[in-house]
């Protein structure tokens, strides 16, 4: 099997699900003839036609609303946000209409809302965002944020087959940078399950998406100093895999959380609360976090580098925590 990128894995998931199930349709801006801003949907139109690959007007609210309406008739729409930052334009539709549908009146919304997210590519304040926590704070949604090609394909398939609205974040820095061999068979990765990427015993580094790779890089550097860090990739942010998180903390007794989202209200705070509630007596040090700054994502490369977490920052925080 040749190696494929995360972007290709996402495209394969869409192709395979659309071939498997005629209720799967896609809609979004420029997804058809153009194949999407990042080419995630390239080739879909030629194969599945205009009824299943719908180029829409520049109308995020209409895209999400229409996808929701389609799902009420048993379709499984996959809607694309050209950049996930634009999800702010349809915030009401997502958080009030879609998310509350099943709870309010028992109407499931089996749709996926996917789009490129994250920084590190000098996209500036409106093309680099990590708005996941607005939605992690919204009961009724599921929020998935993979870091590998294998997981992206398996999780996207799970998301399409799920009976609930799933927000699927695709880190654009990883799109063409991570590659791996992927099994030819039809497989899925379950939503709501974190994975231990590296075993360790001195501390746990929890992360997801691009920062999962930063955490692994840091763990490799720390190993040279004799610090064995356990690295966990959350993969799903809602629902959180409390079992894996608590299991690792009980083993290493120290926790460092790394995320690319801004600091205040980031998922680190929530995880810290969970650990304090359920594993406080296992902690041998304060819960530490390395996150982006509490600013918009700046445009100039030196500014953005300063804004984002990196391996050095993670190593420094881990070193301090290990010594505690």
């Amino acid at each position, binding site marked *: 099997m040749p190696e494929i990128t995360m972007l290709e894995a996402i495209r394969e998931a869409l192709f395979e699900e659309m*071939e498997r199930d*005629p*209720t799967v*349709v896609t809609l979004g801006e420029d997804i*058809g*003839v153009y194949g999407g801003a990042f080419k995630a949907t390239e*080739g879909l*139109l*030629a*194969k*599945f*036609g*205009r*009824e*299943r690959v*719908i180029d*829409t*007007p520049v*109308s*995020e*609210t*209409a*895209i*999400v*609303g*229409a*996808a*929701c*309406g*389609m*799902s*009420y*008739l*048993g*379709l*499984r*729409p996959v809607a694309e946000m050209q950049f996930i930052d634009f999800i702010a334009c349809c915030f*009401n*539709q997502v958080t*009030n*209409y879609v998310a*509350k*549908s*099943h*709870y*309010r*009146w*028992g*109407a*499931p919304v*089996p749709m996926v809302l996917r789009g490129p997210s994250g920084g590190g590519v000098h996209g500036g304040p409106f093309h680099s965002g990590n708005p996941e926590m607005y939605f992690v704070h919204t*009961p*009724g949604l*599921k929020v998935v944020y993979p870091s590998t090609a294998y997981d992206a394909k398996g999780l996207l398939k799970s998301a399409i087959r799920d*009976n*609930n609205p799933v927000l699927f974040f695709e880190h654009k820095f990883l799109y063409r940078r991570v590659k791996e061999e992927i099994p030819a068979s039809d497989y899925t990765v379950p939503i709501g399950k974190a994975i231990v990427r590296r075993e360790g015993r001195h501390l746990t580094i929890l992360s997801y998406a691009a920062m999962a790779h930063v955490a692994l890089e840091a763990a490799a550097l720390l190993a040279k100093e004799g610090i064995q860090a356990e690295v966990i990739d959350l993969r799903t942010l809602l629902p959180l895999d409390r079992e894996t998180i608590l299991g690792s903390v009980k083993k290493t007794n120290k926790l460092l959380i790394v995320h690319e989202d801004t600091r205040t209200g980031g998922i680190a705070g929530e995880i810290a609360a969970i650990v304090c509630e359920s594993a406080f007596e296992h902690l041998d040090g304060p819960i530490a976090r390395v996150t982006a700054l509490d600013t918009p994502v700046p445009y100039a490369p030196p500014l953005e580098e300063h804004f984002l977490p990196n391996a050095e920052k993670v190593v420094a925080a881990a070193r301090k925590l290990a010594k505690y």
Partner: protein
Amino acid sequence: MSTKLTREQHLELYYFMQLNRQLEERLVKLFRQNKIVGGVYSSLGQEAVSIGTSYALEKRDWLAPMIRNIGTLLVKGFKPRDIFTQHMAKYTSPTHGKDGTSHFGDLKTLHVVSPISMLGDLIPVMTGVAMAGRYLGQNIVAMTWIGDGGTSTGAFHEGLNLAATQKAPFVLVIENNQWAYSTPVSLQVPIRNLADRAAAYGIASRIVDGNDVVAVYETSKAAVDECRAGRGPVLIEVKTMRMKGHAQHDPAEYVPKEMFEYWKTQDPIARYESYLAKHTLWDAKKKSEIDARIERELDEDQKFAEESPMPAPETAEQGVYCDGCHTIAADWRRPKSEVMPPASSVEAVWKVTDFGAFDRPAARAASAGTGGNGAPPARNEPADVEVEKQPPLRVPFGRGPKDRSVELERRNKLAEKPARPKPHKRRRR
């Protein structure tokens, strides 16, 4: 009398309008007795809108009401008990107390989509319903309502524009009741007719007297038929008047008294009662029969609601996610193979003629192809400008033999024919 309606249907329109009004009057009484948990949003004076529009839909069609469209829910098949229990937040309500008022629906049989409080959101949602119905070959029409105030939202524009570009079988009723809470329509929009908005979307529109139930029905029926025939969305503006405040708490003192006085003379039920009498469609006996039936049904359902329990507190935790509690299945009315490769495969290119140029004839000659910029022609395109288009999305229908309009047309034709001797006796229908 309307040639589009039978006598029974005429009487049914009265039944639903009166049921709507009496039900809401009871809700007001219950509100004053502190038996309603939230608000009561009266549709007094607007009953002809809810009833006349939704009556044009068939069983297979979909609707999504707004807050003042309780009448549409009754027409679609919900019972007064559903409305009572919803307002009283009872466990027996369609949402088991999770939401109130008209905020409920039914996907499987009645095809009703629940509204939310944020205005305009239903327009894209029902556009999606219409698109999915077409995709599955169901030959359905989707309908929703929006107030004069709601036309100012972004979702209104986004939704209607998508519906128009997709030529979705979607009817949008603008219920112009003159007031968006306390703000007159003249401060909401700078145009006299909200229906004028349709021109900007290249879709058809109609304006109708919202207090004339037969006119509302006939206009809606024509719109629904057009949609079903695949001619794209229709916008209907109904002109009416909200005869109460925004909700029970609002005495509507900001409305000029003379305005209420004028509209009182236009009461839709009083007007319809005279109409029925004028066309000898009923008599006093029939009216009291219907009124008694309404009274009986409301008594029974109100009793049911009042005696129903509140939900158990811990049920608040249930139902955030579908964990297999629902089976999701599409009702395919066309072969799936049509949307699967190879049948679904197309050449992924845009066809562009005339280059969007100001001088279209010259540009078209230069391009010598077909297509426009890929957009379908607007309905109001001048006839002398010929606009070619991409092949439209499949609209797999005409009216089926079970369509009410087909049956009525046939009956009307029979009625119009001069009587002449037949070789054999026509069987009674």
